[in-house]
């Protein structure tokens, strides 16, 4: 861990500084790659940067940080993303 010069409300950027926020999700976006046309509207609109853009412009969803807001599903012009309720976690 990086040493802080003084003890105050300072933090350095790193992946998942606030933990895996994907655990907050109630609805999960499911991408149908057959329907996807790689337009990247979901990548532009995702407020959390949870759409991973691959080298060939295909997309994957980072479920570690996706909070399930559904913006991507709403914006997708070809209806390639649907929202499914997360299954209740088994105790």
């Amino acid at each position, binding site marked *: 861990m990086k040493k802080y010069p003084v003890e*105050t409300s300072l933090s350095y950027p790193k992946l998942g500084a606030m933990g895996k926020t994907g655990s907050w999700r109630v609805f999960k976006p499911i991408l149908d790659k057959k329907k996807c046309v790689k337009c990247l509207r979901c990548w532009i609109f995702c407020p959390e940067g949870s759409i991973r853009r691959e080298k060939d412009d295909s997309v994957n969803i980072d479920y570690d940080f996706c909070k399930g807001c559904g913006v991507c599903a709403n914006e997708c012009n070809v209806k390639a993303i649907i929202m499914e309720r997360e299954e209740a976690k088994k105790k």
Partner: protein
Amino acid sequence: MTVMMDTGNRIAAKAAVMAKPEVVAAYPITPQTTLVEAIAEYVARGEYTGEYICVESEHSAMCACIGASAAGSRTFTATSSHGLLLMHEMLHWAALARLPVVMCNINRVIGPGWNIWVDENDSISQRDTGWIQFYCSSNQEIFDTVIQAFKLAEHEKVVLPVMVNLNAFILSHTSMPAEIPDQHVVDEYLGKYVPKWKLDIDNPTTFGNIIGPVHYYKVRRAMQDAQLNAKKLIPQIAKEWSKLSGYFHGDLLEYYKCDGAEHILLSMGAIGAESKIAIDELQKAGQKIGLARVRVIRPFPTEEIIKLGKQADLVVIDRNISVGLEGALFTEVKAALYGESDAKATGFIAGLGGKDVTYKDIETMCRKSMKGKAKEQEWYGVEE
């Protein structure tokens, strides 16, 4: 070296400009106005080349200082009374953010009723914000303390904001001579400001974000540690400055004729200066009383007060009142003595609302206390 014959405010402005802050942000309020006007004159003459920001309120003044300090600049501001109170939220902010802002506060009464004279309730009510607080008793001390305030605030073991208090009119608007060292002396003493942390695009940080209980707890403890470090450093910093300037006004306290004293008077600010005359008079009359003028109340000089309590009974004069209890210095002096000394302590409230407190008044309070005729807590000079 030159001698400057001027008011406390203008001498404070001189010190501030000589410390070369990169940013000054200020909003005028009586009786601080002539201080920031003096800095504006330095700007107009091209003698101060930093950024001088005229803001729309004291809250904004402190916010501008916080922003500038977070960006790595040496910063200065000044205020008084209601202006200080309007800053209250941001005072906490500057201290918790560990930003070494230096500020002069001209102690003035809080309204209503509207009154521009001196008492110390404004700064006393900011004791818990984490700021280090000095109280000056002469214009020379104002100059020397403002310079030392930058050194202390920016010290790597402190990194906290510092408030230098001077009493309204008695100091702010009274001309007294002060020796001003050459610029290179101040430059060498303060050195270049190296911020302990700053917002830096080459080393990005998130600042002021949410932090949970575990970390917040540590932030508070680190502030306390920094204040305790300041307590050790204040005497050292004062001594270093005295070697360069020839002036030493005491460290946490200034002791005056305390040898062999069976009573010791504790007072602050301008009453602290007036107290010296009272002590001279009382000693001439054969009374065994000395003075310990409190220069710093945060960090509080607990160990020094205990030492005094082991030597003598204590008389405390407060130009403030924590309504519902007593004078703040009196409370804190007694708290320091708890379990450490059987010294008797009597506390006087005096000079609220700018009521004059002369050396004769101080003598009267001391005599009453020494004769054992004072109640534990008394109001002095209330005209019924």
